[in-house]
């Protein structure tokens, strides 16, 4: 009996690790090896893929964009959510509960519903295709969560 209980989490963790292992495995293989043959570990161990990522601007610009976006998003979310979270936890005021539930409903909204209007709203205010637009759009889902957790 004891051995069986020990087995369940182990099997589950193996199940979890397999795709991750495969991803890491692939990242060290040459393209030829990935496409040409099936191997459980890299035969010709290569760091070329990583060198490409860090030297080719089309690749590393992606990281800069992500970083800009993350920083902006965090700054916006925290600056507006912090005072609100304080107010919700310290004070009772008119419409408090309704306001809180309304914020939560935004968390429930399917992102796809907002895809179309965001597209047009940001085109209209000349924000389209900028990291700021992405950051702003995402605050819709993050701010309620931030208020909720803080």
């Amino acid at each position, binding site marked *: 009996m004891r051995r069986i209980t020990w087995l*369940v989490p182990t099997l*589950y963790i193996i199940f979890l690790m397999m*795709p991750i292992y*495969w991803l890491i495995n692939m990242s060290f293989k040459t393209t030829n090896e990935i496409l040409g043959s099936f191997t459980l570990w890299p035969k010709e161990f290569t760091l070329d893929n990583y060198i490409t990522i860090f030297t080719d601007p089309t690749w590393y610009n992606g990281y800069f964009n992500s970083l800009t976006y993350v920083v902006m998003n965090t700054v916006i979310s925290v600056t507006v959510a912090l005072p*609100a979270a*304080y107010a919700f936890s310290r004070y009772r*005021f008119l419409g408090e509960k309704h306001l809180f539930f309304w914020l939560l409903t935004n968390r429930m909204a399917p*992102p*796809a519903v907002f*895809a179309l209007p965001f597209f047009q709203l940001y085109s209209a205010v000349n924000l389209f295709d900028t990291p700021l637009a992405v950051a702003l759009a995402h605050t819709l889902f993050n701010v309620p969560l931030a208020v909720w957790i803080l």
Partner: protein
Amino acid sequence: MARKTTNQKAWFLVIPVVLLVAFNAIIPLMTVVNYSFQETFGDNVFFWEGVKWYEQVLRSSRFHDSLLRQIIFTSIILVIEIPLGVAIALAMPKKGIWVSVCLVLMALPLLIPWNVVGAMWNIYALPELGLLGRIINGMGFDYNFTQGPLAAWFTTIMMDVWHWTSLVVLLAYAALSSIPDAYYQAAKIDGATPWAVFRYIQLPKMKRVLTIAILLRFMDSFMIYTEPFVLTGGGPGNTTTFLSIDLVKIALGQFDLGPAAAMSLIYFLIVLLTSWIFYTLMMNNEEK
């Protein structure tokens, strides 16, 4: 927690959030409502159409199909992930160094961005090149998730189970570890069977977190977009086109603003209504 004082000036602290969310939520939502009642031929010329789009969407077999697929998908996800998560949480070691090792390893999938999960499962499940594809084909099944609908479903579900079961495990485990030892000792003295211990001690303690887990999993799987989009792109054919994917296809692919807007609102209302029912049931249970 300190007692709350009534202070209407607290509104000033909430104003930034309200403004930002209003800019982000109310304007787009009203735009959607607007489109859903009108017809346009470009150049910002609009004609009032009434509820025509709603009728069209509600009658279209395309919407019925993706809604049905969505409901089946969400049900399968819940039926697999919740019991599996609870079972794993029950089998977890209670103390010692292995607890943190298990928890960290299990939390890993939760930290991976959604599109990476999709891409990762794509290469993992490729019939010729991926590990999973190789294994399943090696067992004698004809498995190719880019062509067979059944295989595509299987892969999508496996991916979601892989990504999110850990959330249920972590929540259930947190609830389990908050049960005092005295409960188990009392059960032992009474000669309770393991099933009785589960039914009358562990399950009631987990009820609250399980409701939250079900709610979260329902909402997220009902809105799933990125992962199947990256993995299968909604195919083969339309077999894994869930509501979100279908909606984006109509709205940004074909620019059918009216039907897309009507569909968005129906979709939003379904999620909102179900979540509200869950939320109310949960609150009622707590008051008892």
